[in-house]
């Protein structure tokens, strides 16, 4: 099974029933010239890339914006429109008083499978008690957390809130919660791989192509900046394919990974098996 761990569903037609919503999302997410994407076409792109399931990320920064970037109800709408193809992660704005209740609702009523947070966008330190409260809920509900790490293309996102090493205490304090550091934490990839090796509950995704073609980028990252055997022999069970749709099409980002001189067992792990373990059986088999 191939799983894409990183898609922002901001352009999908099923959640953009007005031009105003689409405009809001394009401005907030920073995909200024992109068009609305029919869900049917998004599924065609998945099929073309051979992706079985895609994780879609809810995002809520509504403490300082008109509405969530993608609400939890909208994540559920996308999942229901394509049963079995999307795995929904909830958003929650820690700055809002009702964030804990909203997160519990997303898990218990909407059936979402984890929490996605971008602390650069909320300008909160990870040790903020409002953030810790959300981690506590994830711990109690046995849900994983996808944490934005490193460079964000989204406007208004200072990077200093997303340096991977800053999250280390959370990994220690919530050993039962699986955390995914997005974008390999780039440019702090050395911190990321240290955390991957040190903590069993820490994973990372490959939604990290910031320059060049995916083939050149992944070659530079995994076989020049690193030795390719670091990935193959030291954290092959921790890196998960993520496309960063709609910034990169799935088929192209995946080609960059497939062009690496990886053993088949490592490529299979990166493209799906690690994500199956990170997400858990319920998410992978659920609808």
């Amino acid at each position, binding site marked *: 099974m191939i799983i894409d761990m990183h898609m922002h569903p901001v352009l999908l037609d099923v959640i953009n029933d007005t031009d105003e919503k689409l405009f809001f999302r394009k401005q907030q997410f920073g995909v*200024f*010239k992109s068009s609305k994407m*029919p869900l049917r*076409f998004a599924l*065609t*792109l998945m099929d073309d890339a051979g992706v079985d399931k895609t994780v879609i990320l809810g995002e809520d920064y509504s403490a300082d914006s008109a509405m969530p970037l993608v609400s939890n109800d909208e994540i559920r709408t996308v999942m229901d429109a394509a049963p079995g193809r999307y795995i929904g992660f909830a958003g929650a704005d820690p700055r809002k008083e009702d964030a804990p209740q909203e997160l519990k609702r997303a898990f218990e009523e909407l059936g979402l499978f984890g929490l996605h947070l971008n602390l650069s966008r909320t300008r909160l330190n990870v040790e903020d008690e409002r953030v810790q409260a959300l981690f506590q809920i994830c711990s109690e509900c046995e849900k994983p957390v996808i944490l934005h790490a490193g460079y964000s293309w989204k406007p208004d996102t200072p990077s200093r809130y997303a340096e991977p090493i800053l999250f280390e205490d959370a990994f220690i304090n919530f050993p039962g919660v699986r955390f995914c550091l997005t974008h390999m934490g780039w440019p702090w990839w050395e911190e990321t791989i240290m955390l991957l090796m040190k903590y069993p509950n820490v994973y990372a995704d490959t939604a990290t192509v910031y*320059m*060049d073609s995916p083939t050149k980028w992944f070659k530079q990252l995994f076989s020049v900046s690193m030795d390719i055997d670091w990935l193959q022999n030291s954290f092959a069970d921790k890196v998960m394919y993520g496309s960063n749709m709609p*910034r990169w099409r799935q*088929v192209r980002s995946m080609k960059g990974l497939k062009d690496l001189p990886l053993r088949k067992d490592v490529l299979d792990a990166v493209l799906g098996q690690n994500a199956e373990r990170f997400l858990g059986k319920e998410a992978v088999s659920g609808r």
Partner: protein
Amino acid sequence: MDVKLFEKHLESSKEFELIVISDEVRNAVAESGIKNGICIVITQHTTTGIIVNEGLPCVEKDIEIMLERLVPQDYPYVHTHMLPSYGTCAGNSPGHLKSLIAGNHCIFPVIDGKLVLGHAQDIYFAEFDGLLRRRYYIEVMGE
């Protein structure tokens, strides 16, 4: 002189795809009511083309192979970086360059209300950056 413009949509299903649109163009000419003049088929995009060739799979494959040889997928292109104005990455330089080779339009005569095509000719919408939703125009001008 009358001018009739038709806007057409399609979805490509492959990164490289030659999609025959001859019938769409013939139908537009018939619908235009124009008896004598010219018909221009124009793509709206910068990673597609409008081309004419013989509608045989072997010819289509040779076109694909020739373009891939001239413009390979893997090459140190300049147009490979994040575009802040788009918010997406530029990963489609081969499509832009193949589009340059193919050209963005073709022109045909219209005589006695019909599109004039050679017996071996088909009109293609050429996709070089699929899969995408695409748009092209058929403009018929004459009397």
